[in-house]
Each structure stands twice: as C-alpha cells, then as structure tokens.
C-alpha cells in the first residue's frame, strides 16, 4: 500500500508542475497533450468501473463521451439565441452545462444499461455497441447541429471569469476534475458497493444467494460510469471547442478499452497510465509515421497476448525488483 501512496504523491506533484516543466522545455504543446491525457484518463477510469471492477465489457462507452460533448455544444449553440425546443434556454456557464452533460450521460447510461444488462457475455458487448452506433448515426444525421462535420463551439464555457482558451488554465481545471474523479473511484473501490461489485464479477450466483440484486448493482455501476464518461466528454468539448461524431465512433469505444487494458484492468491508476501511454504513442508515432496504427496494433497484440495486467503490473514488478535489492 505504501508504494501506492508514493505513486499518488509523485503523480500529484508531477501534475501540478507539469505546465512549468513544459514551459522550461519550451514545448507548450505538452500542456495540451497532458490535458487530453487527463480527460481520456477520466473516461478510461469510468470504463474501468464497469469493466475492471464489474466485469462487464462495454463496447459502447463512446456513446456517453459523445452525449457529454454534444450537451456542451448544443447548450452553447442555443446560448443567447432561441431556446432548445422552444423551452430550454441555452447556457454558457460551466457550472450549469457540465452537470447537465453528466446528468444527460447518466440518463442515457440508465436507458442503455437497463436494456443491455438483461443480456450478458458476447451479447452484452454487441448490444452496447449497437446503442452507441444508434447515437453515432443520430449525430451524423442532424444537420442543425453540424451533421457529420461536427459542431463548432464558438466560445468555451464561463467559469469564474477564467479564460478556458488558455492552455494552462484549461489544464488546471481538468486536473482538478481528474483528481476529484480518481479520489471518487478510490472511495468507490473501498466502499460496500465496490466490494459487492467485485463479488458480482467473481461469482454472480453466490451474490444472488447472499440476497443481492445483482442486476441493480450492475446498473448502478453502469450509470456512475456513464456519468464519468459524460464528464470527460464535456471537458473534451471545452478543451477542443468542438463536438463531433468522432466522439461517438465505435473505434473511440475501442480506444477506451485499449487504454484500460494497456494501463492495467481493475487497478486505480491503470486508466491514467494507459491513457498517457496511448496518447504518447499516438502523438509521437503519429509524428514519426502516418502509419502509426501499425506499431500501435503490434504493441497492443503483444500486451494482450503476452502479458497479464498491463503497465501497472509491469511497474509493480519493477518496483518489487528494486525493493528486493534494497539493503
């Protein structure tokens, strides 16, 4: 446990001084990269709640990411003009728009989850994928919100007069949300719900025999996960000032799964490490060759076939190796 505390402190310090490091290196693009790492880490950590803690392989988490992003975009598009459906006024306020985005994402997760969780195994994977595809094609088909070209958000949300266009400001706002979210996941894992969810993953029959309503527990986790992914989508829409069908594409769901597994399924910091590894690979392999998905695919194949536990496992093994060699 102590090694985990050390890791937490190290990550926090690194997170706080990251923009200064980037400035010192003269690479301000690193701030934007770190912002995206944190946002995807929130999404991956949300998926990890369902997939790692609960053992449900969702291939449709792009749906909640997209709902979060589009919620910000659509609210902003109606800000100061005609209200949505003639009833709901648009808004540009961060503290209203982001909670609304999370609420919407959890509502969508409630609907998708309550239907999908009636199945299991391969059918669950495919039905979550199907629901995400439905939302993807919905986003593509509505011209009023950009259709397949996406929805440009002219101004980022207002938050205490901060300028969210500024990379460092957006980074610190994202960092705050990421820290809060990971603290929530940490609490969740140690809570009764976390323990019960773990039980459902390991042996559902036994949990049923103990008197738990496993369907409700799974659904609860699924909705929390949807809200978290919606938060990530809302932050992404603010960071990019853009919401597009890309956020809903099925390969985005695949990317989230990759991040979770690359980092370490079911671990607390695996999603963060996985998101960082994925985006660093994407950025640097992408700058090096336009065929960057080829090495990514090979790395992924080796990780899946050759290792169990991803980067987290590797880190603990390396740490263990050092500890054994200490006098």
């Amino acid at each position, binding site marked *: 446990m102590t090694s985990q505390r050390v890791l937490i402190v190290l990550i926090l310090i690194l997170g706080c001084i990251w923009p200064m490091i980037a400035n010192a290196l003269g690479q301000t693009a690193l701030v934007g990269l770190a912002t995206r790492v944190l946002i995807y880490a929130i999404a991956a950590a949300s998926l990890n709640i369902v997939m790692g803690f609960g053992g449900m392989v969702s*291939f449709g988490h792009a749906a909640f990411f997209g709902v979060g992003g589009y919620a910000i975009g659509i609210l902003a598009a109606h800000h100061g003009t005609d209200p949505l459906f003639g009833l709901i006024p648009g808004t540009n306020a961060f503290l209203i728009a982001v909670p609304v985005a999370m609420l919407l994402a959890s509502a969508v997760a409630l609907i998708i989850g309550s239907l999908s969780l009636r199945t299991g195994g391969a059918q669950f994977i495919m039905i979550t994928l199907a629901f995400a595809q439905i939302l993807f094609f919905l986003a593509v*088909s509505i011209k009023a919100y950009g259709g*397949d070209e996406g929805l440009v958000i002219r101004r980022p949300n207002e938050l205490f007069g901060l300028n969210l266009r500024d990379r460092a400001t957006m980074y610190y706002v994202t960092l705050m949300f990421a820290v809060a979210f990971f603290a929530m996941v940490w609490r969740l894992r140690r809570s009764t719900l976390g323990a019960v969810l773990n039980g459902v993953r390991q042996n559902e029959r036994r949990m049923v025999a103990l008197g738990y309503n496993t369907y409700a527990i799974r659904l609860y986790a699924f909705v929390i996960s949807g809200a978290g992914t919606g938060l990530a989508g809302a932050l992404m829409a603010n960071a990019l000032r853009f919401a597009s069908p890309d956020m809903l594409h099925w390969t985005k769901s695949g990317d989230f799964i*990759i991040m979770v597994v690359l980092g370490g399924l079911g671990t607390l910091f695996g999603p963060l490490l996985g998101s960082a590894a994925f985006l660093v690979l994407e950025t640097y392999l992408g700058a090096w060759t336009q065929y960057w998905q080829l090495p990514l695919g090979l790395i992924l194949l080796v990780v899946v*076939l050759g290792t169990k536990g991803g980067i987290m496992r590797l880190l603990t093994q390396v740490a263990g190796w050092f500890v054994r060699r200490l006098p």
Partner: protein
Amino acid sequence: MLLILEQLLNGLQYGVTLFLLAAGLTLIFGIMGVINLAHGSLYMIGAFVGVYFGAMTESFVLGMIAAILGGAAAGLALEALVVRRLYARDHLDQVLATFAVILIANQVIVLLFGRQPLFAPIPEALSRSIDLGAGLQYPAYRLFVIAAGLGVAALLYVLINRTRVGMLVRAGSTNRDMVRALGVNIRALYTAVFVLGAVLAAFAGFVSGPIYSVEAGMGERIILATFVVVVVGGLGSIRGAFIAAMVLGMIDTLMRGVLPELMRLVLPPSEADALSAGLASMGIYLVMALFLLVRPQGLFASGN
C-alpha cells in the same frame, strides 16, 4: 412498385453478402467461442488479393481463385499466430487482440496499395442488364452475386448436414467439451473451421468488390452489420445467420431506398437526405436492440 422490387433484389444481394461473412463468424463463435472482430480484415484481404490478381491476369475467374487462396492463407496465418492463443481467454482479450489485428491489417493494406480505392472491374459477360419482365432491368452482375451467394449457402448446408466434418462442426457448436472428450482432434477442427470462415469472407469481399469500393477499412463498414446478423440469428447458428442476413439485408436496403423519398415530403432536401441516411444506418441496430430484448439469445440459440 418497380422501385421496391429493385430494392428487394438489392436487399437480397446485400443479404447474401452478409450471410457469407456471418456464416464464418457464427461458426467461429459457436465452436471456438471467439469473437473475431478481424473477420472484416479477411473480407478486405480477399477483395484486394482477388482484384490485384484479377487485374494482373485479366481474368475474373483467376482473380476469384486467388481471392479464395489468399483468404485461406490469411486465415491459416491469423489462426496460428493470434486466434489460437485466444481460445482459452475471455471476451475482452479476444475483442482487443482482434481489434489490434484490424489496425495492423488496414495499415499493411495502405502500405501496399495506398489509400486510393482499387478499381474492381465487372467481367465482360456480366456487365449488362437483364430484363426480368414487367420492365425491370437489373444488372447481371448483382444477379450473379445473389446466385453465387445462394449457391455457397446450399453447399454449406450440404457440408454441415451431410458430411462427417459437418457432423463434427454441429457437435462442436452444441457441446465442444463433449466433442473433445470423445477424442476428436479439436485443434485440427478449429483450424479447419477458421479457414472455412476466412475463405467465405474472402469470397464475399471479392464478389462485393465491383459493387462497393475496394479500400483499406472496407471491412469495418460491413463487419458491424455482420455482428448484428450473427447476434440476431443466435450465436453459433448458421440457420439463424441465414434468416437474419436476408431479413436485415432487406430492411437496411429498403430503408435506404424508401426513407429519403418519404423525408423529402416533409423536410428540405439536404436535411432530409442527411436525416434519412442516418436513420437508415441506425435501422439494423434498432432492430437488434429491440429483438434482443424479446429474445436475448437470438433466433436460434446454440448449445454453448
């Protein structure tokens, strides 16, 4: 009326293409328990190998033979290198590993052939329209695809229901542990089934070449629809896959054909086109979601 009839034939043609893919996919799931996302890559490889050799030899038939051989070789390699290690793994590992294979296959195709679609010519003998009576002119090539697809389906039926290998396949999809316990060489059976699926996918890719475009990523456009077919038909059931492929192929094509006309009645043309294209693409997923709520196991559930 003529339009609807033509759309029904188009739906039939799309349906048999879906069936060729779904048959392999459902067998691979039913017998080995593997979710193979990379099945679309085999479809793509078949199209590229076939069209490339077809252009080189200037022969459609030789191209088709090359596509089938290429599909078999790719299937053998994929099974030996990747899929064999996934039999004992959970669905998550299978999804991820085969997703990685998609990334690799697409990039290799881009490296070899570039991003431009490959031109796939229709053979001379089939490049005309046939009068089906009542004034309906229908392209001979699409009729050929329908006939070829139904022919392969019939062959598959005979193979599965009338031969010894087919008996093992049926037994395997009902209870694979029992088949293993009875002393069948299960590894050889797995390889054979995977290669059979690969050949069917490659064949589908090759004959679809002149109809859809032959380019990197073409597999993903059809593989999700194929999964819908497999899940609706019941994982592991070829009969279910056939019925689901036909019905979903028709529904999808009819929606694409009819929706724009209906939408144009109430919306301006550009919005109507975007909305109806989206709704039509959504159609099969909606059908699947609704269908699974009524029958979570699909049309015909297999034993596993």
